[in-house]
């Protein structure tokens, strides 16, 4: 470390009270920013759980669909028409709907039922117990072992329950990439059994999932689907569409944004004010340094170093604290929806840099203006 920066470092950390106050301000701001954005990211991630778990490359739906759960059924001819589009390797229908399961103890439990194409079982989950071909047995269902699994009484292979007076038997226990957002267990069965067991509208295909022959075919497929009056979205586009709905049409995004802004303002207030006081208290000393022969750019580098060091330390502590809290929360609450993403970390990092820049700007202005003569004059 350059000597002048070592002096800056010692001036900063040896003033323990102020350094602690600075760290608390920045750590608190980072903690709040990371927590808020992580919870938001977790909610958005889970809101697209079906899209992620099924894993299809292209999804066809009614253009009015905003979320996976609120599908608008399409007539069967759309599936035929999609299959005939050049560039489609194969296309299958998917059922997605909600139902009430009556458990052996008489309790009713909401469930999400995914109906997979009978022929291909495209989008099937990976099983941790049971055989996938057993899904073709009478009344067969596969249950997902996620945080909602205990709500069905933690069923085992052979466990039974009812949906609309139909007997259902668990033939497999599966794992998926991510659990759902709405706190209900997920069941997989065949498409035909799903539409047979669950009361449905005139049309029954919730989504058509497509495997294109190549990625070059995607624009043409989308264009042809649009000509049918429907919308074809890639997996990423569908996830983005669902995310945008929650961000911009539910108030969730606005609330998170507000909380993030408040966190930023709180962090900036505490850190900015403390750093300003720190600079004011050391102003005479900076003036003395100038009188001794320190150049303006050396004093500026000292302040920028102090601000950057505090910001990075606070950032590390804030991220660590948020990570710890999320990890502990997930241990205690399996369905806790929070996800730290690189984007969240980058966003918090930029916010911290802004806090450091504003705080140090005030200090730099003061130090640049101090005249060594003022030190003589007292």
């Amino acid at each position, binding site marked *: *470390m350059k*000597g*002048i920066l*070592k*002096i800056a470092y*010692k*001036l900063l950390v*040896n*003033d323990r009270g102020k350094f602690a106050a600075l760290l608390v301000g920045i750590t608190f701001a980072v903690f709040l920013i990371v927590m808020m954005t992580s919870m938001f990211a977790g909610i958005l991630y889970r809101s697209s759980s079906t899209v992620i778990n099924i894993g299809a490359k292209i999804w066809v739906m009614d253009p009015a669909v905003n979320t996976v759960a609120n599908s608008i059924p399409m007539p069967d001819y759309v599936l035929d028409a999609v299959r005939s589009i050049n560039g489609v390797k194969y296309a299958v229908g998917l059922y997605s709907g909600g139902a009430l399961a009556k458990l052996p103890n008489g309790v009713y439990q909401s469930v999400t039922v995914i109906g997979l194409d009978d022929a291909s079982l495209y989008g099937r989950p990976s099983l941790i117990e049971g055989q996938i071909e057993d899904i073709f047995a009478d009344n067969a269902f596969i249950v997902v072992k996620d945080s909602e699994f205990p709500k069905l009484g933690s069923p085992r292979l052979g466990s039974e329950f009812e949906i609309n007076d139909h007997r259902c038997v668990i033939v497999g226990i599966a794992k998926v990439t991510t659990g759902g957002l709405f706190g209900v267990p997920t069941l997989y069965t065949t498409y035909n059994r799903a539409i047979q067991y669950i009361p449905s509208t005139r049309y029954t295909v919730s989504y058509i999932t497509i495997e294109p022959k190549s990625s070059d075919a995607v624009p043409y497929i989308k264009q042809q689907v649009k000509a049918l009056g429907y919308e074809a979205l890639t997996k990423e586009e569908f996830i983005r569409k669902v995310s945008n709905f929650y961000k911009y049409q539910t108030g969730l995004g606005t609330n998170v944004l507000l909380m993030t802004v408040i966190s930023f303002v709180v962090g900036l207030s505490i850190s900015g004010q403390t750093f300003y006081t720190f600079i004011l208290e050391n102003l*005479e*000393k900076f*003036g*003395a*340094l*100038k*009188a*001794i*022969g*320190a*150049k*303006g750019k*050396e004093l500026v580098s000292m302040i920028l170093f102090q601000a950057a060091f505090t910001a990075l330390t606070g950032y590390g502590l804030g991220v660590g604290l948020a990570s710890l809290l999320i990890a502990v929360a997930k241990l205690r609450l399996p369905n806790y929806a929070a996800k730290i993403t690189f984007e969240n970390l980058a966003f918090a990092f930029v916010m911290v840099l802004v806090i450091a820049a504003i705080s140090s700007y005030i200090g730099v202005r003061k130090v640049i203006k101090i*005249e*060594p*003569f003022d*030190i*003589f*004059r*007292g």
Partner: protein
Amino acid sequence: MARLAVSAKELVKWFGEGEARTMAVRGVSFDAYFGEMLFIEGPSGSGKTTLLSMISGILRPNSGKVIVEDREIWELPGDQIADFRLNTVGFVFQDYHLFPKLTTVENVAIPLILKKLDWEESISVALRHLEIVGIRDRAYLAPVKLSGGEQQRVAIARALASSPDIMIFDEPTASLDGDTGRRIVDFVKTSVLNENRSIIIVTHDSRIFEYADRIMRMEDGKIIGVEKGGQNAQ
């Protein structure tokens, strides 16, 4: 014949503009020599500190010249004037202006660090200077734990650290009792002053006039007289 250390020519400095203008220094000229201890004495507001600031490269005069080692210092660009202060002038401020959050030795090392010496070497040289001023055993204490006289010695060690040709003391005895003040100035005279160094002290403490080689008296921004120092100086 003594060598010229500082030559001030017709220095003028005022503060404020229009009706608020105050003349601080009115056309002052004087010379200071190597091997000499020059005292500038005068009442408050007489322009002593302003004059000191102009000759040490801290305060730009409105007119006049300051020549040090054949250079007109106020013709130097910004960074070079800072280098001039760092390499040629050693300051001992009235309130010392030591950094309370650094140790004594780190305070002394500051000019060396500004001269781009590495940290360990700066500390090593600073320790030698603390030895010279007699407080080597206080090196790793915070300045606030030192007495006033010891803090003054730290400030002297810091000023000495960059081996300056000219040392400037602003009211060095103002915060010290009479005995300590005399001991400090005696130390400066016997251990800091040499034939390659000029010492200029601003003071109005007549108890230390005996240590001056010359005493320059100021009043109302002008020099009103220069006299020899020594035992009989008042």
